[in-house]
């Protein structure tokens, strides 16, 4: 009945939009909103709070891009995607960018035709065991029963790790993280293995988190980062350099607290270029001169975002580890703003 009204209107709107296909940057500016794909909920990385406001580590990247392009960190339409719908949502143009703890792999980059603009979190597969087991290294796990999510790369990584170390294990296949949590606590398996950030978040929900330890071995590389479609390099640059601006801000000591002071001009030329008081970086990118300042003001620099959402002061309590600045021995490294 009223469907046809929708259909009629949609067809007309569809034809109009088909004619006006321009660059994503122009589209976002014209729309006044950034469509950003996030997860349907992952502790610390993206979840709406009791008021429906999205918060989290990945969400902050969306907000920073929206602030850089539109000058408003709240001008984001968060599109929740599941592991199954995320890539089609991006490929079909429903979302402008995807910030959904997605691992940068060869086939996703080359075959699915996405551009990963950088890495905002270096994750890896880890192990959690009860403290009373007295295990201090994953190599002591000979003969252990392991809870593992089926159909994921973690399953393959686990098999590789145990084979290369010449030890045996017995897998307990489980479907979801929630199930794994229950099985592990019920003692159905000695070890639970998944991404280290997921392990930390899971452990944080236990009644006695101190009774469980994360083993030091990380057995896979899971670089997580935001991605955009192939074929629109200008838009890819905007997202890439917004992420880099957050990282560089931490490296240069620009925080959300001192940014207005620093925006008045400093004697460090790189800060001046970053914040737009010197040079024309914003113009080259096709955004305002103070784009990076707005992006950093949105949620703070990389370190602040990390601390606020998943850092050691939060219940999740992740240490910086690999995600420390390169100057502190981590892998977080931004090319220079020049």
């Amino acid at each position, binding site marked *: 009945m009223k469907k*046809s*009204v929708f259909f009629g209107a949609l067809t007309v709107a569809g*034809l109009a939009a*088909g004619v006006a296909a321009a660059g994503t940057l122009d589209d976002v500016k014209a729309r006044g909103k950034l469509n950003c794909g996030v997860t349907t909920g992952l502790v610390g990385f993206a979840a*709406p709070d009791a008021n429906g406001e999205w918060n989290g580590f990945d969400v902050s990247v969306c907000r920073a891009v929206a602030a850089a392009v539109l000058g408003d960190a709240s001008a984001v339409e968060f*599109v*929740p995607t599941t592991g199954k*719908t995320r890539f089609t949502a991006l490929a079909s143009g429903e979302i402008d960018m995807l910030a959904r703890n997605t691992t940068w792999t060869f086939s996703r980059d080359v075959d699915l035709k996405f551009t990963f603009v950088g890495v905002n979190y270096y994750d890896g597969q880890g192990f959690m065991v009860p403290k009373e087991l007295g295990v201090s290294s994953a190599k002591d796990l000979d003969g252990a029963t392991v809870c593992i999510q089926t159909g994921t790369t973690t399953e393959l990584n686990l098999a590789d790790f145990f084979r290369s170390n010449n030890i045996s294990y017995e897998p307990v296949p489980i479907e979801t993280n929630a199930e794994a949590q229950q099985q592990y606590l019920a003692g159905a398996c000695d070890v639970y293995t998944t991404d280290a950030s997921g392990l930390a978040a899971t452990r944080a929900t236990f009644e006695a988190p101190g009774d469980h330890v994360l083993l030091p071995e990380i057995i896979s590389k899971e670089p997580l980062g935001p991605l955009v479609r192939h074929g629109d390099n200008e838009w890819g640059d905007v997202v890439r350099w917004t992420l880099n601006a957050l990282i560089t801000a931490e490296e240069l000591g620009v925080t959300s607290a001192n940014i207005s002071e620093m925006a008045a001009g400093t004697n460090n030329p790189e800060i001046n270029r970053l914040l737009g008081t010197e040079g024309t970086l914003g113009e080259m990118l096709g955004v305002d001169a103070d784009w990076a300042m707005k992006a950093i003001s949105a949620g703070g620099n990389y370190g602040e975002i990390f601390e606020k959402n998943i850092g050691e002061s939060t219940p999740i309590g992740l240490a910086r580890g690999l995600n420390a600045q390169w100057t502190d021995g981590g892998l977080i490294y931004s090319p220079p703003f020049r």
Partner: protein
Amino acid sequence: MSNTHAAFVRTEQVPPSPPPANAAGPVKWAKDNLFSTPFYSVLTIVALYVIYLILGNTLPWILNGVWGTSSLAECREVLDGVSAGCFSVLTERWNQLLFGFKYPADQYWRPALTFLLFFAAAAPVLFYKLPRKLLLFTAIFPFLAYYLIWGGTILTPILALVGTVVGYLVYQRLVSGSFAAGFFGGIAAAFVVWIIGGMLVPDNANEGAMLQAVPSRDLGGFMLNMMLGVACVSLSVPLGIALALGRQSDMPLIKWICVIFIEFIRGVPLITLLFVASVMLAYFFPPGTTTDLFLRVVIMITMFSAAYIAEVIRGGLAALPRGQYEAADSLGLDYPQAMRLIILPQALKISIPGIVNVAVGLFKDTTLVSVISMFDLLGMIRGPILASTEWNGVYWELLGFAALLFFVVCYGISQYSQWLERQLATDHR
């Protein structure tokens, strides 16, 4: 005075004395039903022990439950090692569980009002003894509900209503000639009104509307399950009847279209159809446009359940004795009249349990939309609520609550159908 020398004769009856204590009341009942043989006595005692075990563990868990804290960690502090539920999550996220996390908080009265009006609209359909004039409200309800839930310009629902009324009037006018002419003429007239009207409604009509427009993406929670369930059941029953009749048609084209549709839809899992609705359709439209996801999902679920209902009704049609068809023919009724007046009333009565079965299944299947990132009740629980740092780890309380809500609705549907069967029972059993 004959009774003077027979003083011992009673003038009134002896009041019956109560039965012995062991032959009446709960004692007798227990003896007859629970302890009639030694074997049954053992079974009774074992059953009682199992019930005690279950209740002994769950009741304290429920009764000692904590309400009113703001996170799981606080719950645990309050409980201090005692094993009990943390029901605070239900109160803190109550609105999110019912309405999703994006429906504007100051507009919650709109879906709530729609929910109440739904009962008024459903009553005359469900209880045929109510005055038939109430059906007028039922006819208006879909448009009213659309306006209340989605808001925006009132022109859209009014236009849809006008189109429907025009279509109905055309049908009324043409149906005396032939049913097909009336049916297709009515549909064509409605479409003409919608298309012309659609051009007249200005693009920015939603701005400054009396009720704030709420896009479909912002719907969620149990409200979404109810909306999908009600919309899909009410659309799929007529569609299912049409498909069932089409499958029995003598016209090969219609027959084969119906057969292929039914067999194809029944051969495909619902979740596949939902993925097609949410993912694949985006490729068929120009980039940057999206059909309303809610509408896509309603179409897919309706198609799915219509195929099942069609088969249920076909079973009802097949159960009717051939004499009923012949009786209709001998009265000189044409096909639509025979169907409407003789065949369908009987066939539908036979099909009630099957239709209700499909309806209950469909209502529960609406939770599948959570896999295509729509936040129905289950999607809200699995996504945003369990992913918040405050409530990560609260499983039993949330899923138990969801189960309770679904049970109430499904049990209600099933009780209604049993009542209806009793009401319509005309045979002498």
